[in-house]
């Protein structure tokens, strides 16, 4: 297996799918000659040409809408939103058009919307957002958020092969900071809807995804030194989420912290916590706790942004309370 950065893994996943299947095309701003704002599509236009690597005007609603139209007529477009924050401009196309077509008319809409998300890079309120929970309420969408290079590649490839609209939130803080082994098998995919135990444990579970998987792993490491074994369950897919994996983990540890970088209120964690309470009430030795980013926009200045983020210290603190409950 090759060792790749998270960013390289996404890139490789796309490249492989484009080589495998001519119907896979890319749409986005600056994705051609420039290779994308984060260089995820570097070299793609040379290999696949401008017909399949379509540099668009700045018009996210048209980008997603056009992707839907192409998907209805034989293509499998991957639309890139330059920063996830701007996905709200394309919101209507995603939640009203893409999400509902199959239910209404029975046509598959195989599009992927890639969106670099997340804070920690001093991007301020509009280059730091984690908008996944704006979509997980919407029937018809699939939402994924990988935390490792292998998952990033596997989920990308699965998303391209899926016949439904898949929102792919890639965390830009992880792009070059996280490296890992990635299977080279052309048909390696990570199935959508399947969670993954990133660290097994018996005393408590952190259910999380994306960047905070790493925060959770660090917190688990710290607590392990104190004798507490914390399981880290990486959801990977936020809709449809892996009910069985969640119930299994709760069955093992009986204590759960749900964690994400996005603001806490109304976040994905609410759904997960509610699901657990509803379906594993008897298994719980403590309340399901939640931890997320502050309920504010993401501020720019480092002291503010650091305070905004759910830090390892906060995760450890929450886990201590959970373990002591």
């Amino acid at each position: 297996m090759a060792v790749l950065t998270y960013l390289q893994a996404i890139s490789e996943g796309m490249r492989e799918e484009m080589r495998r299947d001519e119907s896979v095309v890319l749409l986005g701003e600056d994705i051609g000659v420039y290779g994308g704002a984060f260089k995820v599509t570097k070299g793609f236009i040379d290999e696949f040409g401008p017909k399949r690597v379509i540099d668009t005007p700045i018009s996210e609603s048209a980008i997603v809408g056009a992707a839907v139209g192409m998907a209805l007529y034989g293509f499998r477009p991957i639309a890139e939103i330059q920063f996830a924050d701007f996905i709200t401009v394309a919101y209507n196309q995603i939640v009203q058009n893409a999400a509902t077509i199959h239910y209404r008319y029975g046509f598959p809409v195989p599009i992927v919307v890639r969106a670099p998300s997340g804070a920690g890079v001093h991007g301020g309120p509009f280059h730091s957002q984690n908008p996944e929970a704006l979509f997980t309420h919407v029937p018809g969408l699939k939402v994924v958020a990988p935390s490792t290079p292998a998952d990033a590649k596997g989920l990308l490839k699965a998303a391209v092969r899926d016949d439904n609209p898949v929102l792919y939130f890639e965390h830009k803080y992880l792009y070059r900071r996280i490296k890992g082994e990635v299977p080279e098998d052309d048909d390696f995919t990570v199935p959508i809807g399947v969670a993954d135990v990133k660290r097994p444990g018996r005393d408590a579970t952190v259910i999380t995804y994306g960047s905070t998987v790493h925060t959770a792993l660090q917190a688990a490491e710290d607590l392990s030194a104190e004798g507490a074994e914390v399981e880290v369950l990486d959801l990977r897919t936020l809709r449809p989420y892996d009910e069985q994996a969640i119930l299994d983990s709760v069955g093992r540890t009986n204590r759960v912290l749900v964690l994400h970088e996005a603001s806490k209120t109304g976040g994905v964690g609410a759904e997960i916590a509610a699901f657990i309470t509803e379906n594993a009430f008897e298994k719980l030795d403590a309340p399901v706790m939640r931890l997320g980013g502050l309920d504010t926009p993401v501020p720019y200045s480092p002291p503010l942004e650091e305070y905004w983020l759910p830090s390892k210290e906060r995760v450890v603190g929450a886990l201590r309370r959970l373990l002591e409950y």
Partner: protein
Amino acid sequence: MPKKKTSLTKEQKLELYYLLKLTRAVEETVVRLYKQGRVVGGVYLSRGMEAASVGAAYALERDDILFPIHRDTGAHLAKGQSPKAIFLQYLGRADSPSRGRDPGIHFSDRSLNVVGNISHLGSMIPVAVGAAMAMKLAGKKNVSLNFIGEGGSNIGDFHEGLNLAAVQKAPFILVVENNQFAYSTPTHLEYACENIVDRAVGYGIPGELVDGTDVVVVYEAVKKAVERARRGEGPTLIEAKMMRLTGHSAHDDAKYVPEELKKQWEQKDPILVMRRRLEAEGLLDEKVEKEIDQRIEREIEEAVEQALASPLPKPEEAAEGVYA
């Protein structure tokens, strides 16, 4: 009014006339069913606008893709749809094209290359542009055509969609059905330009303003745009001017429309306009007219009967089919 020369055959002209009348008859039937309490949702009519809807869709081949909007009964029919499908839709029946999920003429038909719309005005424009891009990329010579009201033409997706289509030289045609009102809103509160087609220059594409009450004129304009698109020369914006001769929907009496204006436009009822043309060209007499009317009556009667006999969907079906 000087008539342009047209490439339409006698048969085609009579077919267009039949389609105009069929559209009117289908909609009148829907209103009847509505008044009988059988249509559960709203009814949006195209009386006065049939020429644009029929004429534009008639310029398409089967493999061209049609994106009709909320009043385009005529376009569905001109693309080959059956009245029965339309009645089934309004009645929300299990074997309607949307299986009871979407109301009225919001429906698709894969075999006819018709893609139904969401209600959000303008939202289909980028989707139709995408379909056009797909045709081009696949090396096909087909085009996609979408409609928009003059009201809907003020929404962001109109701009984004047309601009993208222009840059991509996508084989796309957008027909603005300018019927003087957006619901109750008169044009001077909708836009401040002369004509919506004035916007074409802002995308670097041709724009054509046509009499939207004359089905032949609309057909010719769209046909030209279709041929242009097939040649790889990109999109065209067409504005068809006409009048909505009914309320916004079946429950709207349109009191906000000055009586005089209504009267004036009644003279330009697309069926009258086409009848005058056909008579002038010696293609229509009482006998032919009667044959057409009888054919329509028969077709409608049969379709209504079959539609009414069709079952409603089973409740539990509601939960199915969110994902492919």
